[in-house]
């Protein structure tokens, strides 16, 4: 079969999917959860409960703080203990609702039965409303509110819904596991999104290193028989799951700089988002659970896990359940090793987009920077076709005009350049700062217009 891939740059890190064989286990309820008000892209959510309130699992506890924002639900039943700022995993203070867990009682109308519901509601607005009211956000990393993404602006139509099952980050296996264990639900979720988008076709893209998932999804697509849906095998190549790269791979189209995927008729959603859409629309179940991987090179094989967890469970509780953080772990990462965030605070809580606790050993230590030898590996690796060594130099001399001309604002921060640099130059560190500077200038200029 013809394997698809993007046309510029990319790297081939070892895929290290150590936990691929671990079935999804349901994590026990923690004694307390801390629900963050900032689990999505956009404005922070506003709490609608007060200290002392009794809440049920699946009940709304915060509402959107703007157009691009999302509802937040209680993941557990219990009593609201406090509403106060608390440090997130990077150490920034964010408003959290602390809930003492008491039993496991769910809000009315939430269907917890395992039966597959394949009848898709006819009313598009009903579906969108359900997705919005259930607080569904993109679970591929950016946590962009799904109801906004599924509602293209007037004049733009979706031609293709791309379901992202690439999971191109090394180590992560939660998408792989749900593709195997929740296959039909994901496929129905995709069909729901197809309907919302006006009946466009749907391509489910899965990397070739997950043949079992490709087989299972293909069988499910054939069995359920939704029109216009197909499975595409993607080459194993990072960042295959990047939105722009996936559109290039599947549709052979490139999103213009500064543009949106919908400009080329594409809507990309992660497979985990598809599952959340299914649960929201077919089961009226808000996004209060997600799947994550506990893994890493320093984690012994028997302590590797894929967990179904309640969003708001502290990271430390998950680590404890998994048998603790190995002593030779040097760095903990939430997310993949290429784009994930280092965990500065294990007392922080899980959010909607949490996909892993990754325990990295000595391999993650940075080497001292040496001189750039202009080998061009960073430029070869950049999936956006940028020249990272040059951008770093321009940032060094503070030439923001040249930085903009050389498209620093197009950087997707995938980390390919820094990964490839044989001189251990911290390219992305520099480019991130340059990008922030240039984006600020562009925003200021647009505001003036």
């Amino acid at each position, binding site marked *: 079969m013809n394997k698809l891939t993007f046309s*510029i740059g990319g790297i081939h890190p070892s895929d290290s999917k150590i936990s691929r064989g671990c079935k999804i286990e349901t994590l026990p309820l923690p004694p307390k959860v801390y629900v963050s008000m900032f689990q999505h892209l956009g404005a922070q959510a506003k709490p609608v409960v007060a200290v002392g309130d009794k809440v049920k699992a699946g009940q709304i506890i915060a509402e959107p703080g703007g157009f691009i924002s999302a509802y937040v639900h209680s993941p557990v039943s219990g009593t609201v203990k406090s509403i106060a700022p608390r440090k997130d995993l990077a150490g920034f203070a964010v408003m959290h609702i602390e809930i003492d867990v008491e039993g496991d009682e769910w809000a009315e109308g939430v269907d917890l039965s395992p039966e597959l519901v394949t009848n898709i509601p006819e009313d598009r607005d009903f579906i969108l409303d359900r997705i919005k009211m259930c607080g569904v956000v993109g679970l591929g990393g950016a946590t962009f509110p799904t109801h906004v993404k599924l509602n293209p602006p007037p004049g733009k139509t979706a031609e293709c819904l791309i379901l992202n099952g690439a999971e191109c980050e090394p180590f992560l296996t939660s998408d792989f596991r749900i593709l195997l264990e929740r296959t039909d639900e994901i496929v129905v979720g995709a069909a729901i999104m197809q309907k919302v988008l006006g009946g466009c076709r749907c391509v489910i893209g899965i990397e070739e290193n997950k043949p079992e998932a490709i087989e299972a999804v293909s069988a499910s697509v054939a069995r359920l028989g939704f029109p216009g849906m197909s499975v595409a095998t993607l080459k194993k190549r990072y960042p295959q799951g990047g939105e722009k790269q996936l559109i290039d791979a599947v549709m052979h189209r490139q999103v213009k*700089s500064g543009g949106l995927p919908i400009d080329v008729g594409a809507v990309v959603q992660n497979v985990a988002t598809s599952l959340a859409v299914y649960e929201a629309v077919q089961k009226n179940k808000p996004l209060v659970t997600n799947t994550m991987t506990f893994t890493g090179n320093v984690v012994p094989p028997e302590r590797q896990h894929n967990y179904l967890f309640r969003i708001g469970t502290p990271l430390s509780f998950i680590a404890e359940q998994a048998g603790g953080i190995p002593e030779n772990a*040097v760095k*903990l990462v939430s997310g993949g090793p290429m784009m994930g965030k*280092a965990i500065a605070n294990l007392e922080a809580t899980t959010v909607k987009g949490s996909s892993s606790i990754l325990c990295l050993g000595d391999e993650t230590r940075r080497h001292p920077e040496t001189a750039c*030898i*202009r080998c061009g590996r960073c430029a070869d690796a950049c999936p956006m076709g940028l020249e990272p060594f040059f951008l770093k130099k321009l940032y060094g001399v503070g030439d923001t005009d040249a930085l903009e001309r050389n498209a620093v604002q197009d950087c997707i921060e995938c980390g390919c350049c820094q990964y490839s640099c044989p001189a*251990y130059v911290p390219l992305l560190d520099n480019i991130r700062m340059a990008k922030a500077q240039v984006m600020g200038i562009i925003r200021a200029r647009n505001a003036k217009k």
Partner: protein
Amino acid sequence: MLVSPSPHLHSPASTNSIMRDVVIALLPALVVMILFYGWSAIIVTAVSCVSCVGLEYAISRWLMHKPSLFNGWSALVTGVLLAMNLPSTTPWWIVFIGAVVAIGVAKMSFGGLGQNLFNPAITARVFLLISFPVAMTNWAMPQGFIPAVDAVSGATPLGLIKEGLKSGQTISEALAASGLDVHYVLRDLGASGGEVSALALVLGFCYLLVRKVVKPWIPLSILVTITVISAVFSGIDPEHFTGPNFNLMTGGVLLGALFMATDYVTSPVSNLGGVIYGIGIGLIVMMIRYFGSYPEGMSFAILIMNCFVPLINRAFHQKKYGRS
């Protein structure tokens, strides 16, 4: 616990591993050279390598006070390349002067690894060629551990032909006058030492390709340019212009194209830039050989094109995503 921005992993490749790969890739040709030229080649190589590495260490440590500038493998690459660029009869002190020019002048005075405009080994070779023309053009016939053809010492075949043409002879007259067998120079040269070392050079280069250390575009564009130009000229007038086979196999074209023109620091970054750079080198080599007063020209061609690299880098960029 460490906290730092992503990415949290790094590829196994480092500057050291890349330079080590280049040294490994040069080994087959080095071994062939030693087998054919014997002890004198070993001495030249040893002096060159030890002086290059030693000078880089000394200069970065005691002159620039920045020991982190020292990269032993990179200096070793320069040492090996310099040795392969010198006749095996070169006296040790000339080799040492070459190392001083390569490391001290061409590399460290520009700021060390990654900062030099010109390829260090070639700069040294050209410096020596101009300063010690006799020692540098004394072409020793193979006289090593493997008994080759009758050992003689004299000018290089390129030099012979150039002198002959200057005095109004044709190529075959020049070769006949020199006492060298025409067939030896034009065909069998390739079949003996020349081709064996050519094979070794290509073998080493293939290793670099497999290890993804270099891309083939620069050497390919150089070799294709040389082939096309010499095929056209020798096709029109074979008595005054040498042919492609001869031009590809002599005068360090292969060594230059495969290992010197591909030096990261002094060659363009983008693929298209590399092709332009390669075509430029090919053109200049053939212009020097056909119309210049130097018989050879590979070193000059690379140095001249080195000057254009910053401009080429400015003019040719990668294809960017979504900006066509």
